[in-house]
């Protein structure tokens, strides 16, 4: 009880608090006395608070109603969170369900505070202060799951199927012994997933249905009798990247019936209405359900429930739809006699590239990275990599890029084989015609970009982009050559305040104010400047040792420091002048400071640009 009071009172201990003074200081105390992350649980949660704080990764109770969704973002940051300990706020993701915004998933820390998926976000905010709320990204989660499935199919077992939003089925038949048995494979798999930042619940059972049920609903304490013989006829493993830690659950062959019996009916992947009805009828567990006669069950609930039950117990088959990893495209040509001349390499490239293009066209792909491997007699492969700015299967273009690099191959004693590998490919469908037939199609710059990139690299090519800034150095930014050109911008809403101004937005580069053709990398200090204060252009100055006498001048154009970006610039002022000397040379000068206030600058003069 004492502890409870201690938590309920938000005043720091020994902070000079007196009982009578609380009303007077409540506000500021309310601000300073909260814990740094404001993990303020509700009153009824206070008893659990210490438990929750002990370990942010504390396992949640297995029968914890809410099924943890698959959350790569959350899971990936697990390790850093464990280092930070309690410093990080509980994290949840939010999703919109109709008009209601609710929790999509919650990290273990948040679950320990009583937040459940499906809870209204407003309630969660009221319950826990300082929540870290992020928008849910179901598409991203599914993409992560698919890429994980692809990786598992390449490395662990040939048959991997995606089930729902958060589960993977791995068919272990004939595979487990390669990884040291089922138990060891489970542990390895878990370690591999932990390295990738996922936490997972793993169960091994004879049927997919049983594995699914055990992974989602069983309590994952190491089963006493679970370590059976390691050669199963059919054993499948359901992988649920959830939040459980600890070793996987391995059910011995033929023992999945008893293992399933105590699990709730929801573990059978049946509709919610059926579960609710069964619940009302008093059927809570799979064991009770399995004991019932099938015929009335089918008449009452339809065939789906019985089918799921039989599939879980193994009396009905449940085929998987495995993901198929795409085969990488590689076109090889071996030679009876080693070749060593550039002409021969060029000739064989001329035959390889059309085959590569045909293989790409068959799969509807365009190559964006291609590697040519020339295998030498002495076993030192020569590699040439070309990159394409846009995916392409234009044989002429690819061949031109490859031929240009032939001179980088050192043939040595001769080349045994040439292989073209597609290192990265993207879908490339049919391209639409240009919208208008009466004007010429815009030329495609991508081929030029590829050609130049093989010579000077993509970093040495750029376009300029206007930036809204009056400081000349900051008014230009670089962008990629092949950035899609922006289209008109975002259309403002009909009731937006900006709609009241009918005129078009000003271009960031004011076309009316003359700007120099070249800008010095950094402004150069001028010597021997004679100028009238506060706002006259100089009469004469010396730049790079050469004196200039000013005949005409325009200015000043006053540019203030961008205090909204850098506080240090708050008082900073540049006065720009466009001046012309007696020989007709035009320069862009500026003076630091406005000539009246000392804090705006030291009145030194600089040359910043030269006009044409």
């Amino acid at each position, binding site marked *: 009880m004492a502890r409870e009071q201690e938590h309920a009172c938000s005043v720091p201990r020994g902070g000079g608090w007196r009982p009578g003074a609380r009303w007077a200081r409540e506000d500021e105390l309310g601000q300073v006395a909260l814990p740094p992350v404001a993990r303020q649980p509700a009153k009824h949660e206070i008893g659990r608070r210490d438990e929750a704080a002990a370990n942010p990764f504390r396992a949640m109770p297995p029968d914890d109603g809410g099924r943890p969704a698959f959350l790569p973002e959350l899971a990936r940051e697990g390790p850093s969170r464990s280092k930070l300990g309690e410093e990080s706020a509980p994290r949840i993701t939010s999703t919109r369900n109709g008009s209601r915004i609710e929790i999509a998933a919650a990290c273990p820390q948040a679950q320990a505070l009583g937040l459940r998926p499906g809870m209204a976000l407003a309630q969660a905010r009221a319950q826990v202060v300082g929540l870290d709320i992020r928008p849910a990204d179901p598409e991203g989660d599914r993409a992560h799951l698919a890429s994980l499935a692809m990786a598992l199919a390449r490395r662990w077992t040939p048959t991997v199927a995606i089930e729902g939003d958060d589960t993977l089925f791995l068919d272990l038949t004939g595979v487990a012994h390669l990884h040291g048995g089922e138990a060891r494979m489970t542990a390895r798999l878990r370690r591999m997933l932990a390295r990738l930042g996922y936490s997972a619940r793993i169960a091994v059972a004879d049927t997919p249905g049983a594995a699914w049920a055990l992974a989602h609903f069983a309590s994952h304490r190491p089963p006493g009798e679970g370590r059976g013989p390691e050669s199963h006829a059919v054993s499948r493993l359901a992988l649920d990247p959830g939040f459980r830690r600890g070793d996987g659950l391995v059910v011995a062959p033929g023992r999945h019936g008893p293992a399933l019996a105590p699990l709730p009916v929801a573990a059978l992947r049946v509709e919610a209405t059926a579960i609710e009805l069964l619940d009302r009828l008093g059927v809570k567990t799979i064991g009770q359900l399995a004991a019932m006669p099938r015929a009335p069950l089918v008449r009452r609930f339809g065939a789906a429930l019985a089918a799921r039950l039989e599939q879980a117990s193994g009396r009905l088959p449940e085929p998987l739809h495995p993901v198929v990893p795409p085969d990488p495209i590689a076109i090889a040509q071996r030679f009876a006699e080693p070749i060593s001349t550039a002409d021969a390499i060029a000739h064989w490239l001329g035959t390889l590239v059309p085959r590569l293009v045909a293989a790409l066209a068959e799969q509807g792909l365009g190559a964006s990275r291609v590697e040519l491997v020339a295998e030498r007699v002495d076993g030192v492969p020569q590699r040439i990599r070309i990159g394409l700015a846009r995916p392409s299967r234009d044989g002429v273009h690819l061949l031109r890029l490859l031929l240009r690099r032939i001179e980088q191959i050192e043939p040595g004693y001769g080349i045994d084989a040439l292989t073209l590998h597609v290192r990265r490919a993207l879908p490339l469908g049919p391209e639409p015609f240009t919208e208008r037939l009466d004007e010429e199609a815009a*030329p495609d*710059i991508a081929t030029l970009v590829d050609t130049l990139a093989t010579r000077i690299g993509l970093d040495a090519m*750029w376009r300029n982009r206007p930036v809204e800034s009056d400081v000349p150095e900051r008014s230009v930014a670089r962008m990629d050559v092949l950035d899609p050109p922006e289209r008109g911008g975002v259309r403002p809403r009909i009731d937006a305040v900006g709609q009241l101004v009918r005129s078009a937005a000003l271009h960031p580069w004011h076309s009316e104010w003359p700007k120099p*053709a070249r800008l010095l990398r950094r402004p150069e200090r001028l010597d021997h400047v004679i100028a009238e204060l506060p706002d006259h252009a100089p009469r004469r100055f010396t730049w790079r040792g050469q004196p200039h006498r000013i005949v*005409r001048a325009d200015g000043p154009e006053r540019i203030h420091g961008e205090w909204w970006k850098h506080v240090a610039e708050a008082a900073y002022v540049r006065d720009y002048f466009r001046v012309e000397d007696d020989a*007709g040379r035009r320069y862009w000068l500026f003076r630091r400071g406005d000539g009246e206030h000392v804090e705006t600058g030291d009145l030194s003069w600089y040359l910043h640009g030269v006009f044409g």
Partner: protein
Amino acid sequence: MADPAVLSQLREQLRAMETQGFRRRPSLPFGLGAIDSRLADGGLRLDALHEVAGGTSDMADDCAATLFLAGIAARAWGPVLWVVRRRDLFAPGVAQVGISHKRLIYAEAADDSELLAIMEEGLRHRGLGAVIGEAKRADMTATRRLQLAAEGGRTIALLLKRPAREGSDPIGMPSAAVTRWRVTSAPSTPLPVEGVGRPRWRLALARQKGGEGFEIEVEACDATGRCALPSAVADRKAVAGGSANRHAA
């Protein structure tokens, strides 16, 4: 003086021999009679190399030459590839002579030979309206390569030549360029009030194929890349006979 009809006929024959009978020679006129009438093609040939240099090694003249080139490229038809040696071009200033930032692609070359190679790639691509380079050394072979790459296409090749050494004349070297220009900044157009008027340049056509060189003073490029004749030339008071004509009219 030879008969101009015969001369032009001879020119046609020569051209037919030089370019395997390819006749259509689109050119880019300045829109100023005083210049176009004195250029052999009635303007700058689109499928050819043109060299421009600053009149002196001063940076102001270099910038004048830069803007002269930019103005020509702005009046060409498509995207522009600008091969630079250093990154000191100020994009808002270049945009003020009519090259929108969406049209302009920059490439940075490490040395002159790489610069010329990039220019050649750009010319052979045929999808660009203009290719601009800034080189110090470009000898007869290099410029001939550029000229050959430009022929048959519609991409105008523009080379900004800088003096290789202090005091050397960049235009004086032998070159295969069709026209070679020298641009010097001149005092701007006087205004009735304080301030800097429209800039002026002294344009000198040092050499051209099939024509004579000349010098002229023009007003610098406007927002569409067009030069203008100074009012003292274009709108001058008719000294002799002009007033009489006006009176008569």
